[in-house]
């Protein structure tokens, strides 16, 4: 499995094929005398920003803290053990309602969308 080609930046879907963001980052854990272990998938604006520039990531984190308050607490991580399948999309055993994407879409909906009539 080629982590960058086959996993990183792929579409993440829940068991019902609902889209829940992309694989923004992958975390390896180093252990003495053992090959590095793939432990988590990471998602979030700060994770993405860090790939462009570390300073940008700090700005995004500061901005996020200001907008949401303390609530989500850092980037969302999904343990690798929850991954069911790596194909064209990456399927994980976690419901969309628990994803980071759901959290901020709901936030956006609450603050903006529902205030406009006809949002459904």
């Amino acid at each position, binding site marked *: 499995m080629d982590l960058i080609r086959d996993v990183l930046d792929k579409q993440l879907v829940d068991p019902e094929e609902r889209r829940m963001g*992309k694989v923004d980052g992958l975390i390896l854990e180093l252990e003495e005398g053992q090959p590095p272990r793939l432990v988590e998938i990471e998602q979030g604006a700060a994770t993405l920003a860090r790939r462009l520039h570390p300073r940008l990531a700090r700005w995004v984190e500061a901005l996020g803290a200001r907008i949401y308050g303390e609530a989500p607490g850092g980037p969302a991580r999904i343990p690798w053990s929850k991954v069911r399948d790596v194909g064209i999309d990456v399927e994980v055993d976690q419901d969309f309602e628990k994803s980071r*994407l759901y959290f901020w879409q709901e936030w956006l909906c609450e603050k*903006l969308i*529902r205030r*406009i009539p006809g949002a459904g």
Partner: protein
Amino acid sequence: MKKAQEIVLGVVTSIGGFLEIGSLSTAVQAGAAFRFQLVWAVLLGTLCLIFLVEMAGRFAAVSKHTVTDALRERFGFNFFSFVFLGVTLVDLLVLGAEIGGVSLALQLLTGIALRWWALPVGFAVWLLLWKGSFGMIEKGASLLGLVTLCLVVGAVLLHPPWRQVAAGALPSLPQGESAHYWFLAVSILGASISPYLFFFYSAGAIEDRWDESYLGTNRAVSGLGMSFGALIALSALVLAAGVFGPRGITQLDSYDQIALLLTPVLGRWGFWLFAASLGIACFGAALEIALEIAYRAAQGFGWNWGEDLKPAEDSGFASVYTLALVVGVLLVVVGLDPLKLTVFSMALTAATLPLSVVPFLVLMNDERYMGEHRNGRLSNAVVLFIVALSFVLAVVSIPLELLGGS
């Protein structure tokens, strides 16, 4: 039978979708200033667009991914964000130009200044996206778009020297004003090969759940549809060459001049038909571009997307097109000249083509996405050649046009 229906509907959609303010105004300017000499640019741009649209449809039908999805997945976030910013920026300018176009049509119809129309127009576009479904928007906008066929009628009634029109299919050097000639050529290429068209097409193919059985339909729709679309742009060029050129109107600085395009040929109807064509075509294009910007964000970041979802179900998607429309309206309200905005954004489109097209070509050659339906050498060569040409011309002629004034 069902397939035949799909093809007819697809072709109608493309005719309606092809003409927007960009291809209309660049073609008219070219006809007025250089008669039929720039016909080749329309043809070359359309050829490239046919290839690209066919590829976008094929990509979606075979890989079940949109081009944007794959752009992020294959090239990574850093490269994607670069393309995303560049293409979206140009799209916002074009969106402003289209909103300006609808406002202008309303100014022609009512006499009320276009600046007052920008906000209601933006709101109307937004309302349709907020409440409407994808099928309604795609089919409604394109059926109404058939009114632009009046340009073809006008061109035929004008009895142009067809032999000279055909001669324009071969590029020739202008006598004098060469900077303006090349700048117009670039703008026409940019207007014809608008990337939003094929990105939108690929998102549409996913919304309509295409699979490999649609490949034939896709070929027919892209080939026929875009050719008919180009016919309308060519008609505008022929009309301008016949109406404006002989009267000494060789330089068009404002839509107040372009508005007279059909009047000498169609009389009383000409003015109203022109305004209606302009308004409807630009309105359809504004819908498509606003949607396209939202699609691009949703696909690039892996959100749920779909014009058929309710705004509350995809709040990210709905927020993006709302924001895009606000920017587009602002561009008109601050009083940017709509014609300058149009022509400039078309040239800029041409300059940024490699950014969107080259990675797309790489994807089209990727066996993991395309399997046996990968691109052949011919498609690669044709598209790459036209895009490279547009890019070189754009890089050279944009600075000169800006320096040379007018």
